[in-house]
């Protein structure tokens, strides 16, 4: 269907630079997640792909064609908006039909395609209601069906699950992932939720201050963060300054050590004092003060916990100590 290439994109708003010299290649049929804190440029990047914003510099290539000068409506890219942007005056049926009418799809085909799209998101029985009569999760599905009814090459989703409660969110995450695999459409998904990003992405781009801090598979990014920002933002991590890394047996460089890689031991190689305990359900998080840093260790439920103030040792595999190239 379509691969997307962003080539050296810059987006400025007056004196403020929203996106700085960004290049990004999205493979055909890939599920790419753009992850980052608010204001990092991820939504702007998506809106430029949709054609709702024009880049100040650089090219956007979709399916081998430079689309900078092509309107949003002609890009064959569909978007699911953050607030869903359903038309309150139209029924669900009419909402899904809207793109078909606008794109001049022969009227004889409408009904079949609307029902097909609605069935795909299991909305078949709600077609004659108005959006106001639906729950958040159902509206989400309508927005999805409306975006997909025209069989776009690329589907963009802007924090689509942000308004849903946790249970519904997780169910929708599974559904979206399954849908993408079934349809074979390129999905670009924006979120600031790291769990969502890790669980859904084929490929994950972590944004920070208008740049891509790191891009790779979720496993890669979790295990081998390239910068302190990535280590900190994706999952929780002990980010170690160079002297502490060396004290733990590594090179004099910034490093990341995940709490679940640390075990409590009796004596050596490193010892420290327990400063705090936090119960997390599946286990507990134990904060240990060692020379020069405070480290968090994850202790699975069922294992004995030390008292605050107790002296404990910390053990780990050297392989888990990930030395970062960036600062």
């Amino acid at each position: 269907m379509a691969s997307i290439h962003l080539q050296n994109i810059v987006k400025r708003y007056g004196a403020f630079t929203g996106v700085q010299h960004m290049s990004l290649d999205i493979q055909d049929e890939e599920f790419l997640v753009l992850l980052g804190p608010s204001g990092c440029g991820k939504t702007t990047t998506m809106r430029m792909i949709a054609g709702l914003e024009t880049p100040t510099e650089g090219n956007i290539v979709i399916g081998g064609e430079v689309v900078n000068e092509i309107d949003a409506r002609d890009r064959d890219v569909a978007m699911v908006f953050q607030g869903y942007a359903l038309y309150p005056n139209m029924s669900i049926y009419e909402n899904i039909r809207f793109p078909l009418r606008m794109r001049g799809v022969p009227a004889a085909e409408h009904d079949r395609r609307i029902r097909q799209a609605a069935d795909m998101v299991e909305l078949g029985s709600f077609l004659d209601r108005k959006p106001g009569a639906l729950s958040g999760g159902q509206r989400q599905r309508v927005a999805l069906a409306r975006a997909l009814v025209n069989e776009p090459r690329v589907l963009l989703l802007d924090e689509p699950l942000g308004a849903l409660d946790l249970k519904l969110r997780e169910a929708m995450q599974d559904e979206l992932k399954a849908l993408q695999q079934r349809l074979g459409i390129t999905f670009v998904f924006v979120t600031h939720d790291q769990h969502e990003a890790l669980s859904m992405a084929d490929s994950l781009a972590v944004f920070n201050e208008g740049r891509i801090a790191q891009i790779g598979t979720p496993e890669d990014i979790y295990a081998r963060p390239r910068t302190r920002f990535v280590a900190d933002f994706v999952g929780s991590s002990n980010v170690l300054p160079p002297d502490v890394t060396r004290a733990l047996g590594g090179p004099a460089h910034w490093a990341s050590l995940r709490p679940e890689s640390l075990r409590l031991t009796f004596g050596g190689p490193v010892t420290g004092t327990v400063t705090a305990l936090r119960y997390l359900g599946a286990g507990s998080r134990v904060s240990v003060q060692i020379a020069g840093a405070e480290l968090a260790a994850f202790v699975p439920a069922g294992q004995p916990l030390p008292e605050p103030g107790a002296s404990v040792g910390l053990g780990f595999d050297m392989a888990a100590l990930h030395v970062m190239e960036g600062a």
Partner: protein
Amino acid sequence: MTTAAILPERGPGDRLTAIFWRHPRLLLVLLLSPPLIWLGLVYLGSLAALLLQSFYSIDEFSGVVKEEFTLKTYAELFRAQNLDIILRTVLMAGAVTLGCAVIAFPIAYFAARFARGRWKALFYLGVMLPLWSSYLVKVYAWKLILAKEGILTWAAEHTGTSIILDGVLALPGIGGNSLSTSPIGTFLVFVYVWLPYMILPMQAALERVPVSLLEASADLGAGRAQTFRSVILPLALPGVVAGSIFTFSLTLGDYIIPQIIGTSARFIGLAVYQFQGTAGNLPLAAAFAVVPIAIMLVYLAIAKRMGAFDAL
């Protein structure tokens, strides 16, 4: 799955859309220019003409407007009889504003704090209808009420309160032959006509006061009177000030009410009306019309300091 999207024929609408797309400011300019040209030309242009006119003067012998810049007309405002008019109007506007604030408070407070559902809608309509319904009809209604042979006199006779009514009418300065020809009558009608303008901003200000604030005050041991004085009143004040901008400004400029109800003493609005009409002195009328603007500018500056605009 089909590949390319099906796009309809390109029409002029599509081509224009493409132009708007590439130049988003163009659409903005197209949308804004007709209303801005209208308001700029018709309204600001007229205000400029008003200012211009006020710097002209009238030839005392021929009665013709001399189109030369002069401050003579403004100097005329400071004649004793004209200063009288201005002072009388400002006093009336102040009194009307106070009167409105006192009557509006219980309505606004009840509607904001206690009215729910149906009652809320009823209060809303109850204020909105008088606000929007015909100004002239409202004034006329009061002419019927205040007339010497009208319902108030009748009610006073039948309840044995004629003494009070006569006593009020005998008051020097504000009394008169009947209510409809006394300054009290003018005041009453002004209060009535502008009251909704006070209720609405007051209610809006009170609705922003969280109930928990009042409860906290009661919880901390404050009595009703104390809660009212030290919590509700200060919080309602921005609304009162916002409402007073309307009541004050509208009273300053009105010329119908003093013409129909009250003594024939002149107010600013009436002076403007008479100078431009029967007297044919356009420059003086224009200068008089600038007075409420000047007073309101001072008033707005004070109101702004008190944070009244957050409640608009």
